[in-house]
């Protein structure tokens, strides 16, 4: 179908009836949506420099396309404010990179959800939460940007639960899975800096996350103790694969790790070397595959890949680590990849700017 910016539905001039109409059309995630009235969509579009028919992402199998206009409509439905829109656009530009494989990660029985991590000053500009109750409810930007991501997958790309989204169990992040990186008190360079964006440019990183694992440790007071408990979570038999990982360290844990002088690279190397299972252990649960072991231990193997063990990921750089959450509590988290192998690789894009664009 060619782009048509005037596909308009006339509904009764009653808000509750309009909400019900959206339900009847199958446009929701199960929760009520804001009816996408014309002026709200136009306000959303004002935050994007490209024309409404510009294509942001294309589904590799069906060729269905996400236009700026369709993104704006779904953003309104999710409850986004217009200033959130550049984050959503950047997220789908990142997800459109082939190595992210958003079709596979959405369609799979694995049940993943795209985790969005917003880094840099833009997160503060739009009032995102990087602090207490990081993954929980209560912040409009976090909640609605993540929700808009899901609505686009459903409405634009037709990834319909039970039909083209075959998640065995799914996970709660499939409603919304969007956080900001905590800059306040963060001793390490922000992700947008590590990603080499110019000063002042924020970024969004997308990762096909397979769930959420809380890592509690209130007794450890060395980097090895704190990160040792994280590594154990990363290596649990239910999760360990060659896939990537996201680790969000609580400020309490970060103070212990960085306070001992550890850099991000130090922590990544420690986690990669410790998040492992023996071949015998993998065989004991029926999950050992020689082709995977050989891939990790072949000619290109990382020097920390220990013979006789299967590590999580291929290299330390496969582990994204940063800080988030409230000041109190020894609760970090590990988010496993959807992919058992290299089926989805995390991607990032700058927010609201175009760098090296054609």
């Amino acid at each position, binding site marked *: 179908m060619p782009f048509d910016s005037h596909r308009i539905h006339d509904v009764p001039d009653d808000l509750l009836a309009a909400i019900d*109409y959206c339900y009847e059309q199958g446009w929701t995630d199960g929760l009520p949506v804001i009816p996408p009235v014309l002026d709200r969509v136009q306000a959303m579009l004002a935050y994007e420099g490209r024309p409404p028919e510009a294509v942001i992402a294309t589904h590799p199998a069906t060729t269905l396309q996400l236009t700026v206009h369709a993104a704006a409509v779904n953003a309104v439905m999710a409850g986004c404010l217009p200033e959130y829109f550049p984050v959503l656009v950047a997220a789908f530009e990142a997800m459109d990179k082939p190595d992210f494989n958003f079709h596979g990660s959405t369609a799979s029985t694995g049940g993943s959800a795209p985790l969005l991590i917003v880094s840099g000053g833009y997160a503060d500009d739009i009032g995102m939460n990087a602090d207490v109750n990081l993954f929980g409810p209560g912040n409009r930007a976090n909640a609605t940007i993540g929700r808009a991501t899901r609505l686009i997958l459903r409405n634009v790309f037709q990834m319909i639960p039970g039909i083209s989204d075959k998640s065995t169990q799914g996970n709660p992040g499939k409603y919304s899975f969007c956080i900001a990186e905590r800059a306040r008190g963060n001793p390490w360079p922000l992700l947008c800096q590590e990603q080499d964006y110019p000063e002042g440019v924020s970024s969004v990183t997308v990762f096909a996350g397979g769930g959420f694992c809380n890592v509690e440790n209130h007794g450890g007071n060395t980097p090895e103790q704190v990160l040792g408990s994280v590594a154990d979570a990363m290596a649990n038999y239910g999760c360990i694969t060659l896939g990537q990982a996201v680790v969000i360290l609580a400020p309490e844990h970060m103070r212990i790790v960085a306070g001992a002088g550890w850099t991000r690279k130090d922590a990544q190397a420690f986690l990669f070397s410790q998040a492992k299972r023996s071949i015998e252990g993998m065989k004991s649960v029926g999950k050992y595959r020689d082709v995977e072991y050989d891939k990790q231990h072949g000619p290109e193997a990382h020097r920390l890949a220990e013979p006789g063990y299967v590590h999580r990921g291929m290299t330390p750089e496969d582990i994204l680590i940063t800080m988030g959450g409230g000041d109190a509590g020894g609760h970090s988290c590990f988010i496993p990849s959807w992919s058992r192998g290299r*089926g989805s690789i995390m991607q990032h894009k700058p927010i609201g700017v175009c760098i090296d664009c054609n």
Partner: protein
Amino acid sequence: MQLYDPTSSGAERSLSRAAALAAIEGKTIGILENGKLNAPEMLREVADLFVARHGCTIHAMYSKSNASAPAPSETLAKAAAEVDFLITGLGD
């Protein structure tokens, strides 16, 4: 009240099915395995049934490195040139 439609404004699609084979006796089979744990074994078993029952010949097994992504177009073009029909499926 007027609402914009939130569903796709996708590119025009042009898809068509290949013509069905008139018969499968003696045809050449290709296997496209998706890299999952049991895919080669399971698909080989299926292909063997065609060999036993219909006198087919197994020409080649093609592989995908990413089970959840479309097969590379060069893989499909190669298979189309080499075999009469292709067997594929999930193999978890």
